[in-house]
């Protein structure tokens, strides 16, 4: 498998840029951990007042380029989505990651995240790409729980 299919330039850019890095507001962060490598992320989804729309995603953590780029792109692409949209969005991303290269993410829909499609061929790295997403879903649950 070509290394370039995994590490597209846009991934390496996000690895440096880190959109959404820094937890600056109160919220309900989820802490996720990858036992294999010790990587961790702390990520919170900030919702609109009505609890239905993603205002922004904030995160901090250490990890490889894939996990950091995935968090950065997630923060960039999910802004303004309704929770229903986000659920479909995350579901599609997970499915693609698990597809062993079968599913290529649509660039129209996934933007920069489409560049992570190649990860699905590197089974051991799928967890890296998913770390931020698991945290995001968990944070949404925590946040919504707090609204009830």
């Amino acid at each position: 498998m070509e290394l370039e299919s995994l590490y597209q330039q846009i991934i390496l850019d996000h690895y440096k840029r880190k959109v959404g890095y820094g937890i600056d507001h109160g919220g309900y962060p989820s802490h996720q951990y990858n036992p294999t490598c010790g990587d961790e992320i702390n990520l919170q989804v900030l919702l609109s007042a009505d609890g239905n729309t993603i205002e922004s995603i904030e995160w901090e953590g250490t990890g490889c380029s894939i996990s950091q780029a995935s968090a950065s792109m997630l923060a960039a692409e999910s802004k303004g989505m309704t929770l229903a949209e986000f659920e479909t969005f995350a579901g599609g991303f997970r499915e693609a990651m698990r597809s062993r290269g079968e599913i290529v993410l649509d660039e129209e829909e996934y933007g920069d995240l489409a560049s992570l499609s190649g990860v699905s061929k590197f089974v051991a790295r799928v967890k890296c790409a998913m770390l931020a997403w698991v945290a995001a879903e968990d944070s949404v649950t925590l946040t919504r729980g707090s609204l009830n």
Partner: protein
Amino acid sequence: MFSLDESERIRGAFPELRELVNGVPLVYLDTAATALRPTGPVERESTFALTRTAAVNRGAHTLAAEATEAYDDARATIATFIGARPNDLVFTSSATEAINLIALACRLASAVGGPARFALSAGDEIVHTESEHHANLIPWQEVAKATGATLRIAPVTDGGVLTVAAVESVLTDRTRVVAFPSVSNVLGIINPVRAISDAAHRVGALVVLDACQSASHTTLAVTESGADFIAFSAHKMYGPTGIGGLWGTAASLAEMPTVLTGGSMITRVDFDSADYLPAPAKFEPGTPRLTQAIGWAESIRFLDDIGMDRVADHESSLGAELYRLLSAVDGVRILGTDEGVDRVGLVSFAVDGVHPHDAGQFLDSKGIAVRVGHHCAQPLHKRLGVDSSTRISLGVHSTLAEVEFAVDALAQVRAFFGVA
């Protein structure tokens, strides 16, 4: 029974059947001790070892990722065979170790006030049966000794039958564990597993089923058994030594304290404490039994290809014939009835005036491999009035001709030793 053609095809998978023992072809009637190995699973394991060895669950290199996948696939294959979810199947060294993990979880929980289902105290009761293999007996003796719990023994009939009523007769509201075999490795009688599990659950006991002697001879449907835990060994299922299984309900595994600890079963580790992963990882510290899992899964595929229903049918029909022929031999006393019970293809017996060692040696001279001794079931032998016995046990490769040959040989034993 299998047709002659099918039998020949199946036997072709076992090179050991083409070996000469004492100058005569091997007649292997000792599957209950350890099963012969078919070529496919052994070669799959060795090819894997030579071309795909790498560390599981660790690191990113391609071989390691492939090894991890192969390992997970193996677990899924074996789990599916027993009707289980992969995460509810823990790999152990053997059935013995599987049972010990539960018993040790009980001892450890008892010492430090662990989860209620596992912590026993003085006055609590552990039930086992007169037909227990040492593996499902001695660990519980140790639990009793350490916790002050009492052992209660469910009797078998003189014919070796374990009835639900017999188990119920020793159940009380202090019963905390009921340990019993699906099939005793001496008697060959299929026990009423579900009914015993249900009775045990009515008094709130943990049910530990030893499925060693049924796992490759009948369909093992773990969830239908009603048990909380089931132990079995690969080497009795045409798989490798050094690996076995502990199946548990998800709730039981979640609640069960860890026993063995170390790498690969943790999330975060500090100098003085650590957090553990959920089952099965929390029971599988260290480098996994990689090639053994691969080999075992392939032996499961071997059985699946024949079809477990057909395997069970073949062996039970052949076993019935063995029982019938053996009953007719002068001076042979079979341990365990065939009346009113279902049986697997396994018969133990005493030969009047001839010690099992001598009977076994006589058979061995004709290439017939059987087991002699107490078969790790000393108390049961005493209960049935003998020190030891000779055991014939069948496998998927056994044939009517072999059964007849063995029974013929046995018919000559007493004359040889001058007691007939």
